[in-house]
């Protein structure tokens, strides 16, 4: 009875895995929606990878949290390139890895990441522009008007990040982030979060002039030409001490404060490593690896059936279950598949078979030693277990160290390999032990002819 229960569990798992493995499958439960796609690494789809390092003396500690802030800013900029699925991660203490898959101009991408951000306070008149709107300002155009121009109203449609509407008007920059002296988050008398700021002397004067003339108008805060906040001027601010209030949560107030404080990167970053792979090279490698993998798998299946007969065929079934489960997990987690990742998967097929080979070799031995079939099966599994456990555990130790190594150095190749191999090892333990055993017993229960030792390659 217990075996049938396990068999049903296996069938359910298999059905789930098949469903996830289907191309274009997705899950929609209420508001939760997720599509399952195999994520392919840069070496397969082409793209750009860059390793950025803090340009900061190695013996001096980095300012607290500066790498996190820099990472967030870099991420914003990368997303501004209009690419999907870019990854920006910290690697170790002073490095950031940027991976941008697909067709991008590597020169442009890296230039965008490295540029210092520009924070501007922009006169917007009465028009509040939504967060993320891209605008054009007169700063850096070389002709800063002396007095504020008449307020200009511009269309408030959200434009896609990479293009600027051609008919857009130029907005006046009152001052830049350079005028900010301090920025802090605090609460007002009502207990709401506000952002307090203080300006330097030059900024104080400009700000006093501007605010006294423009009460009730909107002074937009713009980072890298993109609106991040659009507060209204409530009063004239003569002393350079201002407060920005709004419906802030602690989190959103902190975020804005960080952007005000570090509009430019909090620490300079330099590119220490960059890779770009054209899409054709990647696709060719992917196609060839997949073909090679399938042929390898087919040959292993033939070998097992030929050498171990009935249990070999059962192991083949387990191997197919293994492949389907592993691929489904790759999609679910999701694991980014790189070429070494695929190689790791193919290698794990070999290791998945190893557990079965260990068991069947024991099984054959026990049969030759005169045990009955059922006894031999139980002994085979029981005696092979310690070696399967210890050998696979040592492989997992190696995977763990590889993962650490890849993670600390932004070597995503090594990381991908270790993850696929580790997943393979864990799943193979389940399929080679539980799945094979359950199916083998079921076959023996239902087909009496199978009990002859010749089906086990003995006698």
């Amino acid at each position: 009875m217990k075996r049938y229960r396990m068999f049903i569990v296996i069938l359910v798992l298999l059905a789930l895995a098949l469903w996830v493995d289907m191309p274009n499958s997705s899950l929609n439960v209420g508001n939760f929606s997720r599509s399952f796609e195999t994520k392919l690494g840069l070496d397969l789809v082409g793209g750009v990878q860059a390793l950025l390092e803090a340009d900061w003396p190695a013996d001096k500690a980095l300012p607290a949290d500066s790498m996190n802030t820099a990472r967030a800013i870099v991420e914003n900029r990368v997303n501004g390139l209009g690419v999907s699925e870019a990854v920006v991660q910290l690697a170790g203490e002073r490095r950031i890895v940027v991976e941008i898959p697909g067709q991008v101009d590597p020169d442009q991408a890296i230039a965008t990441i490295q540029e210092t951000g520009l924070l501007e306070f922009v006169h917007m008149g009465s028009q509040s522009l939504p967060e993320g709107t891209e605008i054009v300002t007169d700063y850096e155009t070389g002709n800063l008007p002396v007095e504020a121009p008449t307020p200009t109203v511009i269309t408030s449609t959200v434009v896609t990040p990479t293009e600027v509407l051609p008919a857009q008007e130029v907005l006046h920059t009152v001052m830049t982030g350079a005028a900010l002296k301090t920025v802090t988050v605090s609460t007002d008398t009502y207990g709401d979060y506000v952002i307090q700021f203080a300006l330097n002397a030059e900024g104080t004067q400009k700000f006093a002039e501007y605010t006294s003339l423009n009460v009730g108008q909107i002074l937009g805060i713009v980072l890298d030409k993109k609106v991040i906040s659009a507060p209204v001027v409530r009063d004239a601010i003569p002393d350079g001490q201002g407060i920005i209030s709004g419906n802030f949560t602690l989190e959103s107030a902190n975020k804005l404060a960080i952007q005000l404080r570090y509009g430019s990167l909090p620490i300079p970053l330099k590119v220490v490593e960059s890779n770009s792979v054209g899409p054709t090279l990647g696709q060719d490698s992917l196609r060839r690896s997949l073909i090679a993998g399938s042929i390898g798998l087919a040959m292993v299946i033939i070998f097992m059936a030929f050498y171990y007969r009935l249990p070999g065929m059962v192991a083949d079934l387990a191997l197919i279950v293994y492949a389907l489960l592993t691929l489904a997990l790759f999609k679910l987690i999701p694991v980014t598949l790189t070429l070494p990742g695929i190689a790791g998967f193919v290698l794990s097929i070999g290791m998945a078979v190893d557990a079965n080979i260990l068991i069947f070799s024991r099984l054959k031995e026990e049969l030759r030693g005169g045990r009955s079939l059922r006894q031999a099966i139980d002994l085979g599994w029981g005696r092979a277990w310690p070696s399967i456990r210890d050998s696979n555990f040592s492989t997992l130790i190696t995977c763990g160290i590889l993962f650490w190594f890849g993670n600390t150095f932004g070597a995503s190749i090594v990381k991908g390999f270790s993850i696929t191999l580790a997943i393979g090892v864990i799943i193979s333990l389940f399929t080679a032990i539980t799945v094979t055993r359950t199916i083998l017993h079921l076959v023996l229960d239902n087909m009496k002819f199978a009990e002859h030792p010749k089906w086990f390659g003995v006698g």
Partner: protein
Amino acid sequence: MLDIVGKRYLFFGVSLLVIVPGLIALLLWGMPSGIDFTGGSLLEVEFDSGVAPQPSQIRELYTQSGFDDSLVQTSGSAIIIVRSKSMPDSSKGEIIREMESRFGSTITVRRFESVGPSVGKEVAARAALAVAIAAIFIMLYITYAFRGVAHAFRYGTSAIIAMLHDVAVVIGVEAILGHFLGWEADALFLTALLTVIGFSVHDTIVVFDRIRENSTLYRRLPYQTLVNHSIVQTLDRSINTQLTVMITLLALVLLGGETTRHFVTILLVGIFSGTYSSIFNAASLLVVWENREWRTWFRTAK
């Protein structure tokens, strides 16, 4: 019955026959390292016209752009690979534009890598550290897993020696092949090496496990016979596992793309070595240790 342990010095000799030339090659030619470890840049471009210019012309162009150390390789008629010191992406852009205008063909960039020199050295150092840490953890684990048998520590140590044997084989073969085929040790090579380490120990543990089991079953058997018995009993499994892994890897070597060929070949060599060392070396080392045979190594035969 096959007497593998009895011929142990023969099999140690076979190992040395592979390792010693490899280490000599390493000393003579050094390890040809890719830019992942040394720092530098690699640019692979395809000329859309189908005809790549002469390597000398490319070198000239690089020199004029301020990179006078370029190495140019051709691959097929339209593809060239240029190695040079590390460069920012902006310099690469200039070089591409200059190539397009000078050689009158549009260019597709297949691959561009640039690694700063300090990063490369750090990767190599940390890789060595990763291997050392992996070795220590595995040794501790085996010693723990074999705590039930006498001298559990010997099992961990012998497994690590067998593993170092495989590392030496892989590095030696890489040094030889690198010299003759122009292969360079890169991050992928490192991944292959670390995999071999995992597999080597995996394989050795299976043999050791059998010794562990037999030592409780046959208490009266002399140690050497017991060890040999265990090796022979697991031989069937060792060879079959080896075969299945070799089959999949061979498929990848023969049919997989150019990009992974180096990687998979090194894996193949390492895994073969891993099986060899677990059958012929690892368990024999236990016997050498048990008999303290090193006491007679340097004495002349009487």
